[in-house]
């Protein structure tokens, strides 16, 4: 939960703000209650939360940038860095844990050569663990984007990853 963030102006490239503005225009009020849904949609649109989009939000919604960063860094879902084309979420829930998730995690790192929380250099994959996907009957399980892969074995994991 405690993510260390270094905020540098030049940390992410400036993006075209058309999509961000379209999202903001859906919200008439500038109530802070809309902040999380706005951030979720902006992240959906860009794959992450670009610096200049956050500046746009702060200007339009009149929420201080510091507060926005506070929210972003609290929730596991948000990312300040560009993410890979595909997101691999490996379930580390109890059922998966006792059914071999640690071995699956090792295999993923071996195949795509990155650790949890990282993105491959070619921006193909972002790899993150998730507390529980709520699909314990599929244990061990991972999700790539919106697709579930259940009853994994080390071999199966490799085949699936290589199919992307």
């Amino acid at each position, binding site marked *: 939960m405690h993510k260390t963030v270094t905020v540098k102006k030049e940390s992410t490239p400036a993006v075209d703000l058309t999509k961000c503005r379209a999202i903001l225009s859906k919200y008439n009020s500038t109530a802070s209650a809309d902040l*999380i849904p706005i951030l979720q949609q902006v992240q959906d649109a860009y794959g992450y939360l670009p610096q200049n989009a956050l500046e746009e939000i702060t200007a339009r919604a009149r929420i201080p940038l510091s507060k926005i960063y506070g*929210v972003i860094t609290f*929730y*596991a879902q948000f990312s300040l860095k560009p993410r890979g084309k595909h997101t691999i979420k490996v379930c580390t829930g*109890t059922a998966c844990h006792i059914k071999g998730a640690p071995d699956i995690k090792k295999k993923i790192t071996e195949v795509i050569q990155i650790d949890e929380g990282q993105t491959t250099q070619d921006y193909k994959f972002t790899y993150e663990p*998730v507390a529980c996907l*709520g699909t314990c009957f599929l244990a061990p399980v991972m999700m790539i984007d919106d697709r579930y892969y259940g009853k994994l074995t080390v071999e199966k994991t490799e085949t699936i990853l290589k199919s992307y």
Partner: protein
Amino acid sequence: MEKLKKPDDLMKFRKSLESTYRPGMVRIFICTTGCRALGAEEVCKAFKAEIEKQSLADKIEIVDTGCQGLCARAPVLTIEPMGVFYGRVTETDVPEIISRTILNGEIIERLCYAEAGKRIPYIRDIPFYSKQKRIVLKNCGTIDPKNIKEYILRDGYAAVSKVLSGMTQDQVITEMKNSGLRGRGGAGFPTGNKWELAKKAQGDIKYMICNGDEGDPGAFMDRAVLEGDPHSVIEGMLIGAYAIGSQKGFFYVRAEYPIAVEHLKIAIEQAKSLGLLGNNILGSNFSFDLDIKMGAGAFVCGEETALIASIEGKRGMPRPRPPFPATSGLWGKPTNINNVETFANVPVIILKGSEWYKTIGTESSKGTKIFALAGNVKNTGLVEVPMGTTLREIVFDIGGGIPGRKKFKAAQMGGPSGGCVPAQHLDLPIDYETVKEVGAIMGSGGLIVMDDSASMVEIARYFMEFCQDESCGKCVPCRIGTKRMLDILTRITKGEGTKEDISLLKELAEVTKTASLCGLGQTAANPVLSTIRYCLNEYEELIDKKGVQTSTQQAPATQP
């Protein structure tokens, strides 16, 4: 759809739906939620294509359903009216199912559920189902959750109609209090009393929140109910909102549950179009509107004050209580929060009456409880049983026992806030109190079965890692207590533990439990305390023998 303007309209609408029911139709119920991961959608498509190819649309109907419970056999389907249950179905089985089972009434043995070498084709004979009491899950897997008409055909919204046609707010609350329903999210606070507090609270605006932030690793009943029968939760919320005098409600759902969110959105739209949500519901003075708020990945947001902060758009950190949300909650207004499963219990209590509901369960805990059965057990899935059912019945009679030649070692109940229940307590009738007495908690109903190859110290370390990671960091006892306990547990599992570590752990556990701000910290030590209580020998062996354990599958050196 035309709006229903009075309770009578609902009845008429149901009657009109009944008249469209076509007898003689074969209906194939396919789980397309949980089973999706194992190819259920492809099976569904194959059926639809085959039905078209053979022009059987007037004979066979495909119904996409939510979870049917026996997830171990996914993808599953049930064929009615025969009552045939098939599992591990693939696209290639589809033509055969149509030609043999549906058109000729033959059973395809290889797709049937098997127990003790015997194939059981009919759902009513499968012990997994016959030993359950499905009240909350009655529609889960037997209706299309994306179609409000199917819910209405099952007496859906009849409870709201009953409430609005003549029950006062106090009568609803009295009925709930009398039923003995207790919160299914974990703490077990009586629902009727909670509503009474919210009703008595002064305020022009009151909020009703449904907590669908099911974050306990190992629990998936709320996901299944939201995906498989979302209207029952909406109806429960409507009744609660009427009772406390609320006009605005929120669903707080985990972002990790996309299908649940999708089905909820459809359900809310359909309820709105029928006038079951919105202004002057069924012609009464009661108006209620509902919105969905998606979580953003923080376990602590299951705690009610943290959840409220998250809806307000802030960091989801808890705050000290009092004031309780009932008096000062969302935006400082009186707020009532109940869990998904709690709300899903409400309509049936109103319809059948609290006296009926009270006959189910134990003295202190009424009704049923859904357990998410997972881990080293044959029939993983969702199980609904009356309170007071023993762990043995759940794990062995319904769950089918432990796979392979392994033995039952313990069940972890209540997730990271719970504890382990060892084999000596297998015959304990499960309710809120008994589970607490043996050092676990009911929690949301996650039940992870562990066989004799599991290391309990590793399980304790695993849960502590989870709590430490999810600790919001606001209060010191939780932030530092969980970290230090994790250090010690990691040390022990690496074989670097010392004799003093156990007493140190106990001391830290007590402090974290007593001094933490919210439930996360207050319960984080439970897995440690309960494993020390029942499996002290495992800790001692690891410390004495300096045995290294890296995987849960690795048994401690002296295990048989």
